[in-house]
């Protein structure tokens, strides 16, 4: 067996490409370039200095707008929660007032019935 060096030299011997290789390379030179993909078009767009200069303030404005909108929504949520709590409290107070009024009405009714009964008894005694 030959030494490994010789085996590797033989293994890595240069090989010719398939027939017509040079012709195919030249044909690709003549061919119109493939239409750029969406990613390529976007990256080409952002390589333009004008777009880059415009993109930075637009991005900043969008972020600022997002922050303002988020804060506004947070404020609205807090206000809605506050209003909800106040409405619950008002209902609770109304409920208590109604209960008190009902109790009073019941007491008055009971008292009126008692007075009426007493009068009836006195009249029958007479």
């Amino acid at each position, binding site marked *: 067996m030959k030494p490994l060096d010789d085996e590797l030299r033989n*293994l890595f*011997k240069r090989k*010719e*490409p398939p027939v017509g*290789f040079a012709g195919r390379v030249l044909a690709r030179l003549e061919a119109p370039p493939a239409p750029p993909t969406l990613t390529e078009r976007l990256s080409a767009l952002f390589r333009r200095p004008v777009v880059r200069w415009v993109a930075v303030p637009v991005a900043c404005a969008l972020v600022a707008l997002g922050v303002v909108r988020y804060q506004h929504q947070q404020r609205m949520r807090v206000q809605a929660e506050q209003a909800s709590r106040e409405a619950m409290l008002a209902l609770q107070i109304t409920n208590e007032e109604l209960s008190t009024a009902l109790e009073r009405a019941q007491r008055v009714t009971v008292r009126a019935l008692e007075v009426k009964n007493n009068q009836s008894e006195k009249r029958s005694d007479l």
Partner: protein
Amino acid sequence: MSKAPEQAMEESLARCTRGDRAAFAEIVRAHQSMVYSLALHFLRNPSTAEDVAQDVFLKLYRDLPSIKSGAHLRFWLRKVTCHRSIDHVRRRGPDGMLSLDDVPEPAAAERARDPLLEEKLWRLVATLPEKSRMVLILRYQEDLQLREIAEVMGIPINTVKSSIERALEVLRGKLARSMGGVKV
């Protein structure tokens, strides 16, 4: 390369930079086996190797004004082919590797081959790390010196030296074990 072909290459380069397509075709024909073989030995897929080789020549056409001489052209082609081949494997993973028996053989007469040993050697070479494999191909296909390999690959010369030593050691060990202890 002797002086006459070197001079012819310089002339082709000069004509090519003036937009002469025929001169570019001459350059492609003169270097196609080097570029294609580097890609083929690394990728082990004839169709992918041809794609990579074509891409290399198309890039060469665009970068022609930066090429200063025939020697610079060979260095440039080796460098770009190596990097493109390694990038291809890193991006897409190894393609279905075919046996190199599927590839047309060179016209030159060959010494007696041992197909089994060759296949075994291919499999072992395929297990080496990408850079070590490319270093071996540059060493044994192109017969480059360590310094030249270091320049093409863009790595220190000591790394090239240790890569070759380590790769040969691994190949010898694995080959000897697979052949029942026969020294290679």
